[in-house]
């Protein structure tokens, strides 16, 4: 008997918890959907404003969608400020910085992972040690240096000092190279490959996932960086999007240019968001790894 009743009570209990759980889950979904709406709202509002004509931007009551959508905010933005230059600068700085970081990090990561040489550990510690130096601490001396080099208002002034912040990428590549079987490196060696050839022909093709991760992270980081370019790029035409956009807000004459400003914001947000949409899984797992480094 006991064996018959026991499952029944168990079943009832399970049923009720299932119901309450379903209700609870409904509430959870509601709450999280609300949070998602709050998260997306500023970006959707930006998109909506960027397609509005001025009279629809400045209304008394709330107007969510543009009634007569217009594209004119985009060419307008390009006319008020050198947005085309900003966009080009952003692209150039992000691409060259990323390429430079890869060129520095891949050989170093490989050397730290697999090569034996005197001072290996000291060098690696010196590289990792940079991660505890906050970037702000270096700004004043680096500004002095960059202005001595006459690099103020140039892309080089942004790019070259930024290359120093590659410790984490080197760490990632080192970890990845360490997962490669030693046998393939030995085989290359026995076939007469020099270390440099081994890196180029054997290691590089085998660490593509790590290179993809570094490329994505580095591109997003350089595209979005703000403080250092703000210091170096003073001339209006030399700015990047992340830095330049601010003049829409800080320039009192342009305080009313919300439409063109949001159009420029669309340009600034689009590349990282597109990368995010297409490489979402990879970016999320990358960020998780990067967060786990501690």
């Amino acid at each position: 008997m006991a064996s018959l009743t026991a499952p029944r009570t168990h079943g009832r209990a399970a049923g009720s918890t299932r119901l309450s759980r379903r209700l609870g889950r409904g509430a959870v979904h509601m709450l999280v959907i609300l949070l998602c709406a709050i998260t997306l709202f500023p970006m959707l509002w930006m998109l909506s404003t960027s397609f509005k004509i001025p009279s629809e931007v400045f209304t008394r009551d709330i107007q969510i969608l543009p009634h007569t959508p217009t594209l004119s905010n985009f060419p307008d933005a390009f006319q008020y400020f050198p947005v085309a230059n900003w966009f080009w600068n952003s692209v150039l700085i992000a691409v060259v910085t990323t390429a430079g970081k890869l060129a520095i990090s891949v050989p170093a990561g490989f050397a730290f992972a697999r090569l034996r040489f005197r001072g290996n550990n000291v060098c690696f510690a010196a590289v990792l040690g940079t991660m505890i130096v906050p970037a702000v601490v270096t700004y004043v001396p680096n500004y002095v240096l960059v202005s001595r080099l006459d690099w103020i208002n140039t892309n080089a002034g942004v790019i070259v000092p930024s290359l120093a912040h590659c410790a984490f990428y080197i760490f990632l590549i080192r970890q990845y190279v360490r997962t490669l079987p030693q046998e393939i490196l030995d085989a290359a060696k026995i076939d007469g490959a020099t270390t440099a050839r081994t890196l180029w022909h054997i290691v590089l093709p085998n660490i593509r996932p790590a290179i993809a991760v570094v490329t994505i992270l580095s591109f997003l980081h350089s595209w979005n960086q703000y403080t250092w370019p703000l210091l170096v790029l003073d001339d209006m035409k030399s700015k990047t999007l992340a830095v330049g956009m601010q003049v829409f807000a800080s320039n009192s004459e342009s305080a009313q240019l919300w439409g063109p400003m949001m159009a420029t914001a669309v340009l600034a947000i689009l590349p990282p968001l597109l990368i995010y949409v297409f490489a979402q899984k990879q970016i999320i797992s990358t960020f998780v790894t990067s967060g786990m480094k501690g």
Partner: protein
Amino acid sequence: MAAAIEARAPDARADATTAFDPAGRRRRTWSRYRFWETATPYLFVAPVLAIVGVFIYWPLLYSIYLSFFDWNFVSPVKEFVGFDNFLRLADDPRFHRALWGTLIYIVALVPAQVFVPLGLALLLWPIRRSRAQAVYRATLFSPTVISFSVAALLWLWIFNPLQGILNKALFEFGFAKVSWLSNPNTAIWCVIVVSIWKTIGFNLLLYLAALEAVPNDYIEAASLDGATDWQLFRLIRFPLITPTFFFVLVTTIISVNDEVFGAINVMTDGGPFDRSSNIVYYLYEQGFRVFQIGSASAVSLIIFVGTAILTWVQFRYVERHVHYG
């Protein structure tokens, strides 16, 4: 193992490629090969060491040097002033307000960025296998990939006193319009809202990944023994995700004040009356607005020491109290 192979491999190569060469040429090729093979590792690490030395370690030392001088960046002479820059900071009410702001950012943002995402992760945990959760996660994470300064501009438009949608909505419901960014009591909270919006998804993701790593056997065993949800969290899940928890905690404390700089500069310029300023913004003003290079360097040293202490605490103290599952 690598060394053993490396010692043997060049012989194999020399035999294979130079077996029919005259002895002299073989020796020369061999020694050149030896030279380059010894040099290669150094050539591989030289670029990073050079660039890190010039743009991170040298600036650190030069900051220490500059913090003992009075210099306005253009003058050819730097005047040695001893500890005056530090003493002047101790007397500067603007620095005090910046320190106070630094503290407020920490006190407000640590719970918002450390505990709220943890709660969210626990809420999302039961629906982890559903497609909905993947969508939620991707959505909540999306602000992470955009620039802090652009995020601040989007919110600037929302907070705008006359045309911003927030005030319009408040007005619809019969409330008075608020000058969010020029009111000394609300400005700092606007910056804080942007910062929460920008970073919450990132920490949520870290927690979800950590929860994923908790062995399901533990949870099942405890549930069979009648553990409540709270007990499951307090006695099993939380102890096992403490490494992530402390990582999030310490990095949040270290990075919040650096992160909000962009939002402060775009939205409030530290104002009104330095009420939304913080130590990083103060450094920026000293170094790049009024060109007090000495005092800016002193501030950057204070930031460096503070960060170093927190990092040390994480390694020394916190890690000892952490369970690694």
